[in-house]
């Protein structure tokens, strides 16, 4: 069936809205009373998270179990099972949400399904033990709206994630999907572009270049074949924003690419996506297929004469391909090496054709900016950074997950209010933003309202949105080394500063963690870092020293301790550690010996055990297993 005019789209939307109305209404009204078939609720919906994180915890089995159970009870016609994208609260996954009463079940196991069906779906009694417990008050919270994790969030790019079925284009249309495209195609493309400029939207991939300006430049280069490229090569380790958007709301990316195409006079779209994201690839393929089926991709879209189609290109695991020139080379079937700009891709990109590259999250903002207006978007955020930012909050934090907050939110709000503070009551040490190109910020930075400028001024960067929290057990020299190992492995090898400079820096860091470093090494490290920053060819090289520079600036005393006292206060640098058992404290329970993977601990039960330091691999297993504090580390 083809949607051949904006009016036809509107009538489809009205029709599609019916299926979504239960969810929409419960979202606004938020009834606390449990719904159930026996209580007279005519229809219920079960939303079972289908994001990668929850799938890793058997959410697919949970879905199967729900379907089987509903059939067995003969109520499959009264209850829908929907598999939306990521809800964001990954720490408590798998998530199952019931509407109309908006009950948010956490950490659901396949075995819990039957109880949810009989007790809640049929009986109308919530399963208390699966509700979220507020760590502060100890109270159960049933509706996610009232959880601290969600309260300070504002979900714009993630507006449909965890709400609609990403494999059903009609649900996207019901949520005003393709409306921005329809209205844009009726307007002058220059006016549409002016709206994007006025919204103040900036690139969410890291650099923060104004999106409207980028489109304006791309528009200037006239050519028969022009390309809109979606950069979905999310390579930052520990970042999964773009993946979640593609898994949860693939149509928003497709719609935005078409609007971009209309603004810059391009008719070809390419999505460059990591092959490591099979689920996101699948959801995109489904979405593209459905959009074509409805005539929303292809020739003469909505009867306006505008043509646009999208193809998917696969990455093959190279971090540098996030850089736009490298990405373009990779799409051309070559090694993903960056080239000097100019010429910018806007002038000569994919096979020499003018090309505009935008990141997934940037694109996901575009349709909603146009439906709600640029002023609305510009009213959110800080002076220079408008709108919201999605962060993948992870590491030593209580609430690992995907969050979206207005620009200008402080790190403290994110880590303590949304993230629930540091895991295990440990002391906060640092938060790493911007991935391998970013830096580590400390306690003193917690109250900075975050935006592109403030993070850069503090020695880090926004990056694509990875945010890793570290506690007192993390060694900052090792963290810097970890990131440098990553960059050295991912350096394409084209320019000398990055290929050789980073390798030298890594060697020095390795020396320091082995306890062989000198104070002069710290100066050399700093000098090298600055030279690489100034001279490397592309963004990867220019930013690769950031983790070293920021840890040197904020945690210099830890470097000095490693070098002068041969001490790693976090007990991470193995070469600086010795494990032993205090015979006065050891009860001879053998827990350490049984847990030791190297079989380095021996002894007789009820007598003090001892560690063979030659066999000991310093893994710390004994330390974590001893209940009597008898394991000593020096």
């Amino acid at each position, binding site marked *: 069936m083809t949607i051949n005019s904006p009016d036809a789209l509107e009538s489809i939307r009205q029709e599609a809205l019916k299926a979504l109305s239960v969810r929409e209404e419960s979202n606004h009204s938020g009834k606390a009373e449990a719904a159930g078939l026996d209580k007279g609720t005519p229809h219920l919906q079960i939303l079972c998270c289908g994001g990668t994180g929850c799938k890793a915890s058997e959410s697919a089995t949970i879905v199967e179990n729900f379907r089987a159970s509903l059939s067995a009870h003969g109520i499959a016609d009264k209850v829908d099972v929907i598999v939306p994208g990521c809800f964001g609260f990954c720490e408590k996954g798998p998530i199952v949400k019931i509407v109309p009463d908006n009950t948010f079940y956490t950490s659901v196991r396949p075995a819990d399904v039957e109880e949810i069906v009989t007790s809640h779906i049929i009986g109308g009694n919530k399963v208390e033990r699966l509700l979220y417990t507020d760590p502060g008050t100890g109270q159960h919270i049933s509706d996610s709206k009232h959880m601290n994790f969600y309260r300070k969030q504002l979900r714009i790019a993630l507006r449909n994630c965890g709400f609609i079925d990403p494999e059903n284009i009609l649900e996207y249309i019901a949520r005003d999907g393709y409306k921005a495209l329809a209205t844009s195609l009726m307007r002058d493309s220059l006016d549409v572009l002016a709206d994007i400029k006025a919204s103040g939207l900036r690139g969410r991939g890291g650099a923060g270049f104004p999106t409207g300006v980028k489109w304006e430049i791309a528009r200037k280069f006239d050519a028969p074949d022009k390309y809109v490229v979606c950069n979905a090569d999310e390579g930052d380790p*520990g*970042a999964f924003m773009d993946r979640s958007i593609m898994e949860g709301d693939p149509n928003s990316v497709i719609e935005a690419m078409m609007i971009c195409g209309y603004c810059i006079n391009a008719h070809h779209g390419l999505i460059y996506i990591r092959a490591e994201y099979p689920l996101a690839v699948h959801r995109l393929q489904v979405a593209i297929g459905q959009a074509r089926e409805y005539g929303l991709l292809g020739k003469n879209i909505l009867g306006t004469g505008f043509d646009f189609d999208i193809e998917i290109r696969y990455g093959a*695991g*190279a971090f540098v391909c996030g850089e736009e020139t490298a990405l373009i080379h*990779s799409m051309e079937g070559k090694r993903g090496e960056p080239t000097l700009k100019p010429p910018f891709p806007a002038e000569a990109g994919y096979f020499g054709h003018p090309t505009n590259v935008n990141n997934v999250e940037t694109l996901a903002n575009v349709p909603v900016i146009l439906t709600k207006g640029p002023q609305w978007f510009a009213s959110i955020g800080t002076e220079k950074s408008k709108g919201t930012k999605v962060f993948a909050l*992870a590491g030593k934090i209580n609430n690992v997950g995907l969050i979206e907050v207005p620009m200008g939110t402080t790190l403290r709000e994110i880590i303590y209010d949304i993230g629930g503070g540091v895991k295990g009551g440990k002391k906060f040490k640092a938060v790493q933003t911007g991935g391998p190109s970013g830096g580590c910020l400390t306690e003193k930075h917690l109250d900075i309202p975050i935006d592109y400028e403030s993070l850069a001024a503090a020695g880090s960067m926004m990056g694509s949105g990875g945010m890793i929290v570290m506690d007192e057990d993390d060694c900052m020299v090792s963290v810097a080394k970890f990131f440098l190992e990553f960059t050295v492995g991912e350096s394409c090898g084209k320019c000398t500063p990055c290929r050789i400079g980073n390798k030298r820096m890594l060697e020095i860091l390795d020396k320091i963690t082995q306890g062989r470093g000198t104070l002069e090494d710290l100066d050399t490290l700093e000098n090298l870092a600055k030279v690489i920053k100034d001279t490397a060819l592309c963004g990867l090289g220019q930013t690769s020293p950031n983790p070293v520079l920021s840890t040197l600036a904020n945690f210099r005393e830890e470097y000095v301790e490693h070098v002068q006292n041969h001490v790693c206060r976090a007990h991470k640098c193995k070469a600086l550690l010795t494990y032993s058992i205090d015979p006065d404290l050891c009860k001879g329970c053998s827990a350490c010996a049984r847990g030791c*993977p190297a079989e380095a601990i021996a002894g007789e039960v009820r007598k003090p055990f001892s560690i063979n330091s030659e066999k000991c691999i310093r893994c710390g*297993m004994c330390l974590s297993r001893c209940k009597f504090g008898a394991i000593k580390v020096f």
Partner: protein
Amino acid sequence: MKVSCEALRQVEAICRKFKNDPGELISILHECQNTLGYLPEEVQRVIARELGIPASKVYGVVTFYSFFSMVPKGKYPVSVCLGTACYVRGSDKVLEEFKRVLGIEVGETTPDGKFSLDCLRCVGACGLAPVATIGEKVYGRLNPSDIKKIVAEFDG
């Protein structure tokens, strides 16, 4: 290891499906690896001939991207996530333990062809960190002491 004639014919067919277009090299390599499990030299030479480009170009691309492998993977490919979230929750120790238990280094396959060991950067299940995957199955909240038991599950 010798690649069968049948496999090489499959490679030719894949190249032709993509109209022998050098611009499609990466897509072709993906499909060949999906079909054969790895990309040995003979396969790369056939692709080069079909596409009319030097074998060195194909080799250059295969070795550039970490997703492509020139050695066959084990029956149970083990991948330990070394993303930052997993790293700060101790994935380095999990990796060490896998190396020790399997007796191989990263990028290697056990002599019986059963297990291969690799690292990857973020599965996206950061809530379960540290994470490793064996085949399609994801193992979360790992402790080095779990590894022996997990490997034994597959060793039977």
